[in-house]
């Protein structure tokens, strides 16, 4: 039992760092990709939040980005190893195109996550820990406090910009 929990905590930290880094590298907080993402960003900003962090949260809602790529790649590796992760990356790209998005962030996230999950599988952290870890990581951004999360994302975006 303690081993499983420690694996999940390590997976949360790795997933959080991976998807935030890739999303910020691909300039998700810069602007809303579609009008819905813009609307979510301005709504969060209007309630003591921050605009750029809100745009990034809107983009996560409106299109499969690196966080979705990480989750689905972890699911793919859990089911079928590295080929499963690559299948997930292709399907994430198709999903991105359906959602009117260029699709670079999601596909890159899925590819990086495939090799991350497979690599850490070799040293004893199983793929199901990464699935739970990604669910907790997205909970910390989207589910607990929108004002705090958006301010944190804006602060990280200022380092990049």
């Amino acid at each position: 039992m303690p081993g499983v929990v420690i694996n999940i905590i390590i997976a949360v930290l790795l997933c959080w760092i991976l998807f935030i880094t890739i999303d910020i590298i691909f300039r998700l907080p810069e602007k809303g990709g579609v009008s819905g993402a813009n609307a979510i960003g301005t709504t969060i900003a209007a309630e003591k939040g921050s605009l750029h962090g809100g745009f990034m949260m809107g983009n996560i809602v409106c299109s499969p980005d690196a966080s979705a790529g990480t989750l689905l790649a972890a699911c793919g590796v859990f089911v079928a190893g590295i080929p499963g992760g690559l299948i997930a990356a292709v399907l994430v790209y198709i999903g991105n195109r359906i959602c009117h998005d260029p699709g670079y962030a999601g596909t890159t996230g899925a590819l990086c996550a495939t090799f991350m999950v497979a690599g850490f599988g070799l040293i004893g952290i199983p793929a199901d820990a990464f699935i739970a870890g990604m669910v907790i990581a997205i909970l910390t951004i989207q589910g607990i406090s929108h004002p705090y999360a958006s301010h944190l994302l804006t602060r990280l975006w200022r380092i990049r910009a």
Partner: protein
Amino acid sequence: MIFAYDAAMIPTYICGIVALYAVIRVLTEKKTLKKLVLLNVMNFAITGLIVLSIPDIMALFAGIAYFVGSTLESNAIASTFAGGKANE
């Protein structure tokens, strides 16, 4: 044996608890656009649950189809609230 549990099931329980938490937050939130953000957390958790419950390649496809479909729906609802295509 209500309190019996298996350590290997902990990731599944985490997904279930997060999904329940997200649903409660959605029900107590008033603004539709903020509901969509919380609903996104539920979509992540349910996708995890689908794949963790049935470790099969077809369940992977079902999970991805569920996730992409729900994202597309959120996108459509948010864009409609923002004024639709005329506002882009």
